[in-house]
């Protein structure tokens, strides 16, 4: 029997109640599905004094259409998102990414908000207590050095959420509700390039929902990932692509990466392909551009060299598929 450390559990019924409970309880953390948080607690990485369960809040639990797009509540499960017909039709990369997260049991209760806020991952961090203690811990938790880059004071744990790149190519925005204000920001502004502190969220703020804009509905998009076990794993490299064509040339091309940097990353410089035809030469240049912006470190059992190659190959494969020229 392996009890969790002691904590007090709260199950609020509204976002306002949740925010108030957070303010009243030092050392509180939010809990949704628990597929990341409870694991980290069992491993001794997280030791919250209180857990605030967001799964009972009705307003966080649905997907609905609004004037300017589709709003997805943060407590919507990954299974619900993957199975939503309008999302699959208008934002295919998002449905593909949701269906590719973990395994079916995890998707039945893991949530959209939880996947977006997923803690960064590294072979020296997301491990059992005995394994971490035998390495004298690491910079991100309890230790003094980063075993991946021992010379520096930076943490390179990789952001490994699958939804973020798919939402980024569709220009998603997120709604954050804090104790004093509600704000709406581009999803890209939610992440920092720091494995130790990768979410630009203020203390007490709750990620309430994601908005997929109408302007990007129907644009062909796709998501693919490479993982060690095809049926269940986190990505070792993941890529989302969105492509629209006009008169035989590229009108809009967006690529976003995951699992190769401490943050999900929109590839810079794809506008240079506007007007170009999708052909072998163009795909070679795109693969080069995407892999050059992936900066994987030795945070997985798979080598950084291979993961950069995978990013190039996925960029090529997905854009060829979207242009239907395979």
């Amino acid at each position, binding site marked *: 029997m392996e*009890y969790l450390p002691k904590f007090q*559990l709260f199950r609020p019924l509204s976002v306002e109640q949740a925010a108030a409970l957070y303010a009243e309880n030092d050392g509180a953390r939010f809990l949704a599905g628990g597929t990341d948080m*409870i*694991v980290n607690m*069992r491993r001794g990485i997280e030791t919250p004094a209180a*857990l605030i*369960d967001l799964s009972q809040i009705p307003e966080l639990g649905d997907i609905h259409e609004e004037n300017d797009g589709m709003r997805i509540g943060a407590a919507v499960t990954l299974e619900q998102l993957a199975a939503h017909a309008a999302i699959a039709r208008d934002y295919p990369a998002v449905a593909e990414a949701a269906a590719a997260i973990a395994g079916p049991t995890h998707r039945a209760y893991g949530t959209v908000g939880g996947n977006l806020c997923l803690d960064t991952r590294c072979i020296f961090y997301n491990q059992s207590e005995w394994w971490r203690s035998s390495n004298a811990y690491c910079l991100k938790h309890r230790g003094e050095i980063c075993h991946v880059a021992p010379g520096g004071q930076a943490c390179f744990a990789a952001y490994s959420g699958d939804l973020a790149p798919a939402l980024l190519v569709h220009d998603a925005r997120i709604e954050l509700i804090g104790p004093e204000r509600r704000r709406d920001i581009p999803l890209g502004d939610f992440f920092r390039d720091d494995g130790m502190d990768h979410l630009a969220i203020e203390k007490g703020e709750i990620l309430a929902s994601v908005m997929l804009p109408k302007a990007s509905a129907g644009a062909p998009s796709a998501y693919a990932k490479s993982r060690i076990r095809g049926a269940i794993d986190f990505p070792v490299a993941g890529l989302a692509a969105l492509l629209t064509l006009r008169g035989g040339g590229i009108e809009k091309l967006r690529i976003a990466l995951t699992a190769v940097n401490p943050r999900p990353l929109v590839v810079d410089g794809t506008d240079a392909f506007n007007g170009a035809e999708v052909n072998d030469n163009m795909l070679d240049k795109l693969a080069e551009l995407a892999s050059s912006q992936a900066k994987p470190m030795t945070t997985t059992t798979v080598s950084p060299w291979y993961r950069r190659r995978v990013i190039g190959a996925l960029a090529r494969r997905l854009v060829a598929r979207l242009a239907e020229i395979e």
Partner: protein
Amino acid sequence: MTTPINLTVNGRRRQDMVPDNMLLVDYLRETIGLTGTKIGCDGGECGACTVLVAGDPRHACLTLAVGCDGLDVETVEGLTTSGRLSAIQRGFHEKLGAQCGFCTPGMIMAAEGLLRRNASPSEQDIRAAMASNICRCTGYVKIIESVQFAAKALAK
């Protein structure tokens, strides 16, 4: 801190005071004595602890017992009625779906969840629905045959 919960476990209503930090798997095994549900890994990787909560498969080792307040929880012990094995249990028995048996309760509950949603799953459907469950003996072929046996038995 403890919190009162009202729930049903295998169809029986229960009322218990449980510690806030108690996992569903410990509630099932230690409080109620239902030791069919197994603890295999340290975090949702193996699926041995799979039970059904409100009809959906769930890792009992990543679920707080208090989180099941008001819900129906089903474990492998709840499948047998009047001393007769259910279709999925007969499938694992007839097709030798269990080797060492440790993953079997989780496999059976994941398969039970699948068969309730999809009474005639293809082999691909079975593989996809049971991807969260790992068998260290690697007897996957017999496990798939066990689920197919159960689907056929249910169709009769």
